[in-house]
């Protein structure tokens, strides 16, 4: 819509060129995921054939995964449940911490508000990987190593600063008159928070919540460092175990990968309908 070509009807060679470009983009984006699906439909012993499409497609791998009929997948359902539980717990805590903090900073405007938002921004910039070693040690000090709570807290620590930042950006668009009217009616900060702030921020809450869910669902490094017992693993840690040897049944790895990929993908496309591009809004301004 910014380009001159849109004002005029596109010429044929332009359309062809754009079509080719679009095709290249789609192939580039989908090839690894297509490959995953192809491998998931391939009989386990044919994983080494490098087929471009499933030659003898079968759903046997899905049956194997869903019935946990393989050594690597013996606790698939338990681990899927762990992933979901950790994601939901972490998201609830991220939303609680970030909604409360962003409300305080942007609606109550205390003198120390800008310091808090500054610290949140610094925490948002620090790459999580760089804190993995001390985080692991500190979790040992707290006696939480191996405990799933440590992973929940890790997600809370790394997702909350971003959530505060995005909520704060959007909170500035709420008119101050709302709060003033509430104050005149005798509402205290607690009522302003529950009756005005949270309901009006709902679209941003959906976006931030989806972000936290996906971050938690995807987390690999911390999950693999902090959890040691197989019954407490999340799916990414279980999938990572397949790397240990090439003789591992990779078609089964890809099958569980496809199943594991579905919830965040569905969530993303649903949340996208809810608030277009909201998940990225506020993440980069400047």
């Amino acid at each position, binding site marked *: *819509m*910014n*380009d*001159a070509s*849109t*004002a005029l009807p596109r010429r044929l060679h332009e359309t062809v060129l*754009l079509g080719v470009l*679009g095709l290249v*983009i*789609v192939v580039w*984006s989908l090839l*690894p*995921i297509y*490959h995953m699906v192809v491998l998931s439909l391939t009989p386990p012993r044919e994983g080494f*054939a*490098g*087929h471009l499409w499933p030659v003898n497609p079968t759903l046997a791998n899905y049956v194997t995964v869903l019935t946990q009929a393989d050594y690597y997948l013996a606790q698939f359902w338990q681990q899927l449940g762990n992933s979901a539980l950790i994601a939901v717990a972490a998201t609830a805590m991220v939303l*609680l*911490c*970030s909604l*409360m*903090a962003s409300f305080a*900073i942007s609606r*109550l*405007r*205390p003198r*120390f508000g800008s310091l*808090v938002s*500054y610290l949140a*921004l610094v925490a948002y*910039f620090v*790459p999580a*990987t*760089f*804190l*993995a*070693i*001390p*985080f*692991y*040690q500190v979790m040992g000090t707290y006696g939480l190593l191996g405990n799933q709570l440590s992973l929940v807290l890790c997600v*809370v620590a790394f997702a*909350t600063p971003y959530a505060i930042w995005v909520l704060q950006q959007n909170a500035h668009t709420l008119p*101050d008159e709302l*709060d*003033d009217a509430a104050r005149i009616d005798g509402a205290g900060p607690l009522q302003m928070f529950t009756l005005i702030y949270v309901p009006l921020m709902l679209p941003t809450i959906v976006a931030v919540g989806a972000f936290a869910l996906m971050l938690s669902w995807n987390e*690999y490094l911390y999950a693999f460092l902090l959890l040691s017992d197989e019954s407490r693993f999340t799916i990414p840690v279980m*999938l990572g175990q397949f790397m240990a040897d090439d003789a591992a049944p990779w078609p089964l*790895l*890809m099958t569980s*990968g*496809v199943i*594991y*990929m579905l919830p*965040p*993908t569905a969530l993303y496309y649903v949340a996208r309908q809810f608030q277009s*591009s909201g998940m*990225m809004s506020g993440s*980069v301004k*400047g």
Partner: protein
Amino acid sequence: MTTPATNNALAPSADLRRRGQLLSFEEAWALFFILPFALVFVLFIAYPIAYALYLGSDLSAYPRVLTDPIYLLTLQNTFVFIVFGVGLKMLLALALSSFFVLPGRGVRVISALFLLPWVAPHIPSILSIRWMLNSDWGMINTLIFKLFHVDGPAWLTQPSYGMLSIITVHIWKYLPFWTMIIVAARLGIPKDLYEAAKIDGASPSQQFRHVTFPAIAGVFLTSTMLSAIWSLGDFNSIYLLTGGGPMERTNTLATMGIRYAFRKADFEAGVVTMMSALPVLVPLIIVLLRRLREQR
């Protein structure tokens, strides 16, 4: 209207504040609302950072790290990864944004598919690529053999191809996010700027240079810096693809730090390795803080 609390006397809610109190009524509530985040910040961000600085103050770890030839190679790899990974990714994002700002249903459908690498969890998709790139049985070399009847390169087991594969995977994974950030910025440019440029007879490339780019240069620069910081912390693209191999020759600081700490149980060396990114990381964070705060 509530004014910032520094203007106490003028604020309409001043009646709620008692003179001489350290905190006003609403500030005391603000403290309560900030408490959960403050706890999380102190316990799980500030304390680990302090602990890292404490581990990094062990001077005996430095000679151990600095004399390790793998460490020097790691520094070099990190440089290559950031310069080419981030540079190429951001240039491609800028170029592709010209495609995704076009109107039409087709472009919208393609943009939804284009986002899939970013939406899909890292682990299965990067492991899928790892299998695809296997030089003996992967889909890519099978394809190369069918088309050209030659053996494809050892994508993962030869260090320079390994770095190439790592950079490619990194771009595959993160290109969609940055492209969409730039697209969002471009869609925010007022249309009358383009109308005026067209009346002046500006060609599409002149419009890009004189209207589009100046309008999004700020976002582009911020994005590039942010992407450089986060790419320094990209563990998955390396660890899941080559595992830092062959013979530790494709590590970056992120994977090497983890390796020292958890494979060799040398936490000090791990922290020192990670800390060698600080001379780049700290200035970037300071510049970014300034840029993002100025916006508000």
